[in-house]
């Protein structure tokens, strides 16, 4: 067959696909990491979006854990087979945002497709975590959560205490009473997120140089500092005194004793609310993450964890329009309210929050409002989040050293010196990957 013939056939084939796609819907794909009940809700949202119009069709694909979804997205991108939308979690934000050209900033995507975007429409704690140094939103916050403190209502009644506002109150009043009443006073599920990242935000302390890493140039972590070291010295002391228990780095291993009613206080995610309603064997409620009065008298907001949706680059204008339309649909108050109620993740816009309030949802479920209230507390210069490369590994280093502190294999001083050293080495290495 001659080259000419081949070319003719190829162009015919191309013509066919083009003409058929003119009639068909624009297909887009969405890779996510939402398993179980969350995955069902994701599929529901996608189905409803497809039913709401006839121009676009979205297909959600479950890709495993957050880490696996990001890695799958990266591998696909390098092969030119990336999905239109990729869900990336908080710790992977620096990787995906650092790779300039991998994504289309959500703010640009929306405005290019004629959809209004105003960052002020989003609730305060959500606005800047997935933004660049200039405050331009790059990723669309999706499942947004923040660490809050859940409490076992019966346990606190039995012990005759109220949920502590400060860690000093916990140490002197709440914990001894809970222990005397036969409960494990405190467990938590994620030491880097709940006792490190959000510790700095709650107390408005810098977590890293270079505007917590958001600025251009080199970033150094500021973790080897007296306030957080004092906190971990207390945690170790509480563990030795039976006021705190730790079941390893796994999230669920620590959540389980709370669900079983053995624990007074559990630090979890505001997004745990939906699941807890099904699994908890006792009445529970929630309140703000405590703070150290010795560090600050004016505690500030926390920032969001969870994940955001990124529009991958290298897609046709039609497909990008479909992605933009899906983002518009997904961030609409109705969808956000449904997502909020079914999963416990916070609604990302003020409009959705107002709608939930107007509906009287929080009168029935006061605990569902805690996360969003905490995200709306006064902000400070260090409360918008952090942006550090290789952060997944930095978290692994933290988890390792925190585990060693709690099992008595290392001292607080040594552990934080190690974290600082290894984290800074990782940051330096990450910097070179961008070169």
């Amino acid at each position, binding site marked *: 067959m001659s080259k000419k013939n081949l070319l003719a056939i190829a162009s015919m084939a191309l013509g066919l696909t083009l003409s058929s796609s003119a009639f068909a819907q624009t297909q887009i794909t969405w890779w996510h990491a939402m398993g179980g009940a969350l995955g069902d809700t994701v599929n529901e949202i996608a189905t409803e979006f497809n039913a709401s119009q006839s121009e676009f069709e979205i297909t959600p694909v479950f890709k495993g854990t957050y880490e696996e979804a990001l890695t799958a997205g*990266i591998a696909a991108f390098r092969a030119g087979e990336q999905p239109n939308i990729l869900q990336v979690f908080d710790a992977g934000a620096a990787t995906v945002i650092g790779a300039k050209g991998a994504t289309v900033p959500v703010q640009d995507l929306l405005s290019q497709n004629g959809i209004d975007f105003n960052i002020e429409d989003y609730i305060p704690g959500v606005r800047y975590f997935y933004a660049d140094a200039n405050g331009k939103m790059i990723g669309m916050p999706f499942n947004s959560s923040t660490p809050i403190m859940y409490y076992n209502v019966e346990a606190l009644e039995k012990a005759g205490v109220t949920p502590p506002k400060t860690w000093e109150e916990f140490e002197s009043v709440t914990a001894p009473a809970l222990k005397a009443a036969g409960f494990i006073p405190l467990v938590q599920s994620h030491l880097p997120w709940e006792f490190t990242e959000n510790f700095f935000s709650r107390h408005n302390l810098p977590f890293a140089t270079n505007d917590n890493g958001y600025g251009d140039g080199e970033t150094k972590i500021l973790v080897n500092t007296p306030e957080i070291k004092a906190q971990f010295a207390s945690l170790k002391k509480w563990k030795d005194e039976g006021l705190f228990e730790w079941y*390893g780095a796994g999230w669920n291993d620590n959540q389980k004793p709370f669900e079983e009613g053995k624990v007074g206080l559990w630090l979890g995610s505001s997004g745990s609310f939906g699941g807890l309603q099904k699994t908890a064997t006792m009445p529970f409620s929630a309140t703000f993450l405590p703070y150290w009065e010795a560090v600050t008298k004016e505690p500030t907001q926390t920032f969001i964890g969870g994940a955001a949706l990124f529009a991958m680059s290298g897609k046709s204008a039609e497909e990008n329009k479909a992605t933009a339309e899906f983002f518009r649909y997904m961030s609409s108050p109705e969808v956000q309210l449904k997502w909020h109620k079914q999963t416990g993740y916070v609604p990302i816009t003020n409009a959705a929050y107002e709608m939930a309030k107007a509906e009287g949802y929080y009168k029935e479920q006061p605990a569902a409002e805690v996360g969003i209230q905490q995200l709306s507390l006064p902000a400070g210069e260090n409360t918008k989040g952090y942006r550090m490369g*290789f952060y997944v590994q930095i978290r*692994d280093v933290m*988890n390792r050293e925190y585990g060693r502190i709690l099992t008595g294999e290392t001292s607080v001083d040594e552990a934080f010196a190690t974290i600082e050293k290894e984290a800074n080495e990782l940051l330096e290495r990450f910097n070179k990957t961008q070169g």
Partner: protein
Amino acid sequence: MKRAGFNLLWLPIVLLAPQLVIIGVFFYWPALYAIRSSFYLEDPFGFGSTFVGAGNYIDLFSSAQYLKVAVFTVGFTGLVTFLSLSIALVLAVKADKIIRGTRVYRTLLMWVYAVAPPVAGFIGVMIFYQGNGPMTELLALFGYEFRLGVNYYDTAAAMVAVATWNHIPVNFIFFLSGLQSIPQSVKEAAMIDNRSGAGRFWDITFPLLAPTAFFLLIINITYALFDTFGMIDALVKGEPGNNPMTLVYKVYVDGFRGNDLGGSSAQSVILMVLVLVLTVFQFRVMDRRIHYT
């Protein structure tokens, strides 16, 4: 003596081509790519990269954590290999002597082999579960609080136990067939010379099993080094934390979880060298020391 050969140069090349292409595409190209990327620090999406020379290797060898993982890997491999070989040998020797119900007994010993490593890991998680795992409760009776995922050495012990358990059947099958291939006449001759069963075992049976044992030694070392990945991932539940891990698991943690392509490529290259050394060792020893009957 006349050497048989091809007269034409292109014919052998054509005949070998499919095989060469497959090896090239699936083995050499990725290996070369890994070697290349071990000299770079690269943005995972492929937008930027910096040539760092031996930087990734220097970082690894100067990292206390990497050395700790290497030490654990050596200890873990040694223990798993020793335990699974010796337990399997005892079982095989005993099973060889059974007269009634041989089949049932042997089948029961073998079927654990059908358990895939990740599944073995999950079974390990259940058995050693912190709250109410049967093994945890058993140890609690002796006053020991076993804490999987919390205590480094407890987790390590669980890993060794699960890996050993999972690999005994393969060793058992090979040892048993090795034992059965020892000629009856040799055994009878030995019986006349030496009345002690243990003496006969060490003087006659064990040397005759040596080729099998050596082959299994290599198989077990590679199993403990490489195939335990799924088991470890299940036992630590995907969160490395302060748990022990092997070199292969660290490649996954840094490369796939952490997206550090350069660093994990360097680690892979180190493992490739390790496999090369093992292979050379295997062939050299096989040629010189082991005599096949």
